[in-house]
């Protein structure tokens, strides 16, 4: 038993120099580097979103002209999608947690991992450098030929996206090898935490789909520099081809955004229900299936874009089919709670919010899969609402849940639970207030990317703007109490939530640089709480507040290791 965790060596205090951070090969520190940079991106892109909503509070010009507005929504989209949502969960939480969940010292290729980080930063900078060359305009989808007319900035943006994509590929390869090769003894595939499964399927998509954006960038360069007509109709190119390329990458990228969120939700619901995940195998394998099938549905973005009616029909059918496993997962999570022992801590609140918001995102997705309905709703605010329910209600809410859940392991501190719940409430109310009205403005006809709008949409837009303030208040509150906890927070115990995965059961309050003193030996599945009863015997574990200091468990002589 280590006497006082704060004086013992851990991954944070073993070397405090700046260099040791910037050149670190420790997956945990790399995770934190990502956390810092990605949070800044989120802050920036989030503030842009507030500007967008502010301009939309009334028809006509409110705070800026159309050109500024158009650039702001474009940059908001580009940053949020490519620099925030895609990397957030795998790069931050995946990096921090994955090796520990596997009982490994680190990822398989620590240097490659560091390279991924710098590629990510470099890519983000290349995207922003486009602002020096010209405008960033055209929406995050960059449809030709408008985006090409804007100027050379498109080359920088797509290049930056590609470099960030390369970072994803390397992280993906790293994770795949790590999961295959570095699992602790006894950690069979059937015992893997579902977060690991989800990172695995995410990695598959990253490795397979991201090269397509590289090809697209290459073609754009060829067109731009040599004047070969590929996408630009003025040169005899085909603008619809660009859309095919774009979605051939970006639709799978949607799964890069959502699959890891599924993984977090499984962890949260398992832990806070103290119950095995119902249909574990289905949940695990369906992620893999979705990863592959996800490559076959890109055409549902092109129902009204000029693709053949036959193609649209096929894509509609495939879209429905891929929706089913996702729906079944939601059922699995709910059934997991049946006869469990449910504790509503802040991370679990996020899991429940996820189930509600993601379901709305999913059902509206099914709606959009129906061809004639999509024809009416395509490119309206309904779409904006739909994908915010999926991306924010799914990915961001899960990421927040995960961040709260692993916060004690990352920082060794516990955050203020009351504020945590209040913030979760604000986010839930703010989010719905912001985005639900957009379903209505959209289905009643208001197109997306609209600087100005007819006056009949005013009241709903106003509601939406008020909602964005509530949402922002929730986000800033989170940032506030999390930062506060760093300095003033109570010390967490090694396993404050009563989880069963190795990062909680077999590491110190703050993990040592190589995670484990000794390689753990695994004898049960990630959610076999009934086989770990002694863990919960006398310690009121899982209350989150450290009133009764749970001692750091020793690496040896543990009940089930």
């Amino acid at each position, binding site marked *: 038993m280590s006497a006082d965790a704060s004086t013992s060596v851990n991954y944070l205090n073993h070397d405090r120099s700046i260099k040791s951070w910037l050149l670190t090969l420790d997956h945990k520190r790399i995770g934190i580097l990502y956390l810092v940079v990605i949070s800044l991106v989120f802050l920036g892109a989030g503030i842009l979103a507030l500007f967008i909503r502010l301009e939309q509070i009334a028809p006509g010009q409110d705070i800026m002209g159309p050109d500024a507005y158009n650039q702001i929504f474009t940059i908001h989209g580009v940053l949020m999608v490519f620099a925030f949502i895609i990397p957030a969960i795998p790069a931050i939480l995946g990096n921090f947690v994955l090796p520990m969940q596997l009982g490994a010292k680190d990822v398989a290729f620590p240097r490659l991992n560091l390279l991924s980080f710098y590629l990510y930063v470099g890519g983000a900078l290349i995207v922003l450098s486009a602002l020096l060359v010209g405008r960033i305009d055209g929406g995050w989808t960059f449809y030709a030929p408008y985006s090409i007319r804007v100027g050379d900035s498109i080359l920088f943006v797509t290049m930056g996206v590609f470099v960030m994509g390369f970072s994803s590929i390397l992280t993906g390869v790293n994770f795949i090898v790590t999961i295959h090769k570095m699992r602790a003894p006894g950690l069979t595939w059937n015992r893997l935490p579902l977060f690991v499964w989800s990172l695995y399927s995410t990695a598959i998509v990253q490795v397979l789909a991201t090269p397509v954006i590289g090809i697209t960038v290459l073609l754009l360069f060829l067109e731009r520099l040599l004047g070969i007509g590929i996408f630009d109709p003025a040169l005899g190119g085909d603008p619809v081809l660009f859309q095919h390329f774009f979605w051939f990458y970006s639709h799978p990228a949607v799964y890069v955004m959502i699959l890891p969120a599924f993984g977090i939700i499984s962890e949260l619901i398992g832990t806070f229900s103290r119950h095995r995940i119902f249909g574990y195998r289905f949940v695990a394998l369906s992620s893999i299936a979705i990863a592959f099938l996800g490559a076959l549905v890109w055409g549902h973005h092109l129902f009204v874009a000029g693709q053949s009616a036959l193609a649209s029909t096929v894509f509609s059918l495939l879209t429905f089919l891929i929706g089913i496993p996702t729906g079944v997962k939601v059922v699995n999570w709910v059934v997991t*709670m*049946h006869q469990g022992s449910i504790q509503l801590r802040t991370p679990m609140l996020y899991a429940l919010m996820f*189930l509600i918001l993601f379901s709305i995102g999913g059902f509206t997705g099914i709606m959009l899969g129906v061809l004639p309905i999509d*024809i009416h709703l395509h490119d309206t605010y309904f779409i904006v609402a739909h994908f915010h329910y999926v991306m924010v209600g799914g990915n961001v809410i899960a990421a927040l849940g995960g961040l709260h859940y692993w916060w004690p392991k990352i920082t060794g501190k516990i955050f203020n639970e009351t504020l945590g719940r209040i913030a979760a409430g604000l986010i839930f109310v703010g989010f719905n207030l912001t985005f639900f009205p957009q379903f209505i403005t959209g289905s009643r006809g208001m197109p997306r990317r609209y600087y100005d709008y007819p006056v009949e949409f005013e009241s709903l837009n106003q509601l939406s703007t008020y909602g964005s303030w509530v949402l922002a208040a929730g986000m800033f509150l989170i940032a506030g109490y999390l930062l506060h906890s760093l300095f003033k927070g109570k010390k967490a115990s090694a396993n404050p939530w009563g989880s069963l995965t190795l990062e909680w059961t077999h590491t110190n309050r703050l993990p040592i640089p190589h995670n484990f003193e000794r390689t753990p030996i695994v004898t049960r599945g990630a959610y076999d709480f009934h086989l770990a009863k002694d863990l919960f015997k006398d310690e009121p574990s899982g209350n989150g507040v450290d009133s009764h200091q749970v001692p750091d468990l020793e690496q040896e002589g543990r009940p089930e290791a």
Partner: protein
Amino acid sequence: MGENGSVFLPEASSSFASEVDALFNFVLAVSTVFFIAVVGTMIYFVIRYRRRSHSFVPAPGKDSRLLELVSIVFPTILVLILFTWGFQVFITLSTAPPDSYEIRVRGKQWFWEFEYPNGVVTVNEMYVPLNKPVRLKMSAEDVLHSFFVPEFRVKHDVIPNRYTTVWFEATKAGEYRIYCTEYCGTQHSAMLGMVHAVPEAEFNTWLQNQDQDIPLLDLGERIFSQYACNACHAIDGTRKIGPQLNGLAGITRTLDDGSTVVADDSYIRESILDPNAKVVDGFAPGLMPAALGASLTPRQLDGLLEYIKSLE
């Protein structure tokens, strides 16, 4: 709430709008039922199975094959129904009736241009006859645009170098906004048009009156190419199926019966309206379609005259 009692959908003003709405409302209803079931169960479980003791570890839940199977098969059947139903309506939406009235649509940064079969061109204002299928043949001049009329439930992208089409049959008289739904730059949100759905008689009057704005000569030139007069008549002195028309005005014509006639306004007018009344020497009678003249409005005829007389 709209006039039709729906929170989500605007008025249904085209022949197939209510079919689309039926689908929409069906998915909405089924989704709502499922959503309430899922969230309701979730809330019930959270309350019913809340943690009572810190040391309590529940028995592991059993995997139920049956439940899993039901939760896969049932939604599969539902989405297949949706797909088939959606497909049927989609076919209606994508097949314009063969007798549709065709209007040419051009999307430009940042306005809509509509051209009618008789050559009338309007900007941002489109008139359509009620209860008649109208097919839009669309293309863009610069970047992508997208043609959207919410009340008709029609939308399609408008693309440079390519024709795309939508069709609809307006069933309620009124004015409906046309939006551009594909981002097209600074004034994207100002690229608004208006469809005026009016009874057919009113539509025809409107269309004829539209000629009024066009100078006679331009009107004549346009009609000349639109009615394919130029297929038979050269205007550069060469001989096609019919005699060349340049320099016709004022000259003396020899007819096939040997008589001569001065090509004044009345003669040209008669030659268009009743081609076989006087047949030019060296040309066979009956070649020039007699029906052509009948469909011309008086002003169009005047335009043609002006135009032919202007040819040298």
